[in-house]
């Protein structure tokens, strides 16, 4: 397998914190390192370009046979290493094989314009090469927060008039729909309507604890809210405790129970 004894300057490989400039001579490349090598490629075109460059071949004049052999070798190796092979790689392999066979079989019919079966591939390769180069150039352009820094809005004493753009509830609802659609956040557990008020109560209790350090357990409840209020508050306290957001402490049996922040 000639891939293993190639001096490789195009791809920088970091393995175990060390930069590997030469691909090891022997075939026993640690699988992790090989994974890194393969992940360096952005797809079949990238791999193909690499193989072509490796042999110092002009893209316009690809010797299809050796390149195809190498390509197929490469993906065989990936398969041996049990990497999931993207179908794109396989498609490219079959494209190469097709071109190879068309070139091997002499064209008996005299075409007026004999089309080089490689033309389309070359065109794609060059197109890809163009954008690959451009992306490297784009990476060099001075960009914000790496090379240049914007002066952040500096403080003004001026009373900020509130020009909040308006949102209506419908918009929020739509946004929520969208989030749900994507993440199905509530799919894993059943959430009833009550949960919301539990969440609200959690925030309220946390806020008080945040300000005062502690709150008496009984002060969390208000008579006016009735049975439902008690349940909501109690659930909120349990949830806070479960999520390790508060500590519930009681110094001795039957004494006052306090909720306090975990920090203290």
């Amino acid at each position, binding site marked *: 397998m000639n891939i293993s004894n190639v001096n490789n300057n195009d791809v920088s490989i970091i393995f175990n914190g060390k930069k590997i400039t030469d691909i090891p001579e022997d075939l026993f490349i640690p699988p992790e390192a090989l994974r890194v090598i393969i992940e360096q490629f952005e797809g079949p075109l990238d791999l193909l370009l690499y193989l072509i460059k490796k042999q110092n071949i002009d893209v316009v004049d690809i010797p299809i046979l050796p390149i195809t052999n190498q390509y197929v070798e490469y993906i065989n190796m990936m398969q041996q290493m049990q990497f999931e092979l993207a179908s794109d790689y396989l498609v490219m392999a079959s494209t190469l094989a097709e071109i190879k066979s068309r070139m091997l079989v002499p064209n008996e019919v005299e075409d007026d314009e004999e089309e080089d079966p490689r033309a389309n591939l070359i065109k794609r390769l060059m197109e890809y090469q163009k954008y690959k180069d451009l992306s490297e150039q784009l990476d060099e352009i001075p960009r914000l927060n790496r090379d240049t*820094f*914007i*002066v*952040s809005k*500096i*403080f*003004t*004493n*001026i*009373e*900020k*008039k509130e*020009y*909040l*753009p308006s*949102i209506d*509830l419908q*918009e*929020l*609802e*739509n*946004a*929520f*729909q*969208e*989030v*749900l*659609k*994507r*993440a*199905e*956040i*509530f*799919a894993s557990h059943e*959430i*009833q*309507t*009550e949960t*919301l*008020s539990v*969440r*609200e109560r*959690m*925030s309220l209790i*946390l*806020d008080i*604890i*945040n300000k005062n350090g502690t709150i008496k357990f009984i002060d969390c409840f208000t008579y006016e809210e009735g049975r439902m209020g008690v349940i909501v508050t109690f659930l909120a306290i349990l949830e806070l405790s479960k*999520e*390790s*957001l508060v500590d519930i402490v009681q110094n001795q049996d039957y004494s006052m129970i306090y909720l306090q*922040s*975990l*920090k203290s």
Partner: protein
Amino acid sequence: MSYSKPLNLIIEGALLASEHPLSLQDIANLFDNDKPSKNEIQKAIDMLNSNYANHSFEIVNVASGFRMQVKKGYDDWISKLNKQSSTRYSKAFLETLVIIAYKQPVTRGDIEEIRGVSVNPQIIRNMIEFEWIKVVGHKETPGKPELLATTKKFLDYFNLKSLSDLPPPADLEIS
């Protein structure tokens, strides 16, 4: 002490680029080695300020450190800046807001997990500035991330009496 740029200009640039006031210590920490002393930094700041006579800004010492500030007398023009602020909220803003509303108290990590993208700190900053959300505590996990929750002002804005008046998630459930 020698840097590739004059000390006072490094301080000027840092104060201008910083989103928060910087203490003398914060400024000293920008230097890896050959840290300037607090005294030297203070002197540089004084020198900068004395050169700002022909400028519209100055360095002011506030509780948490030094910050750049527009001088008094520019209100007429600068107050109009805010008007031009974006008239619509981005999708990212709305989605972050609903997640905070429904899943509160949440950390940024929670929001990131649900949305699958990192949270734009500017969005959180804006919401805190609008007083729609606030930090209600810190989660006892590594890094002690801030726990965010909505405020009364958020409810007021949407004419809600309580969070339970928000559309219930059950109604929105997509199977």
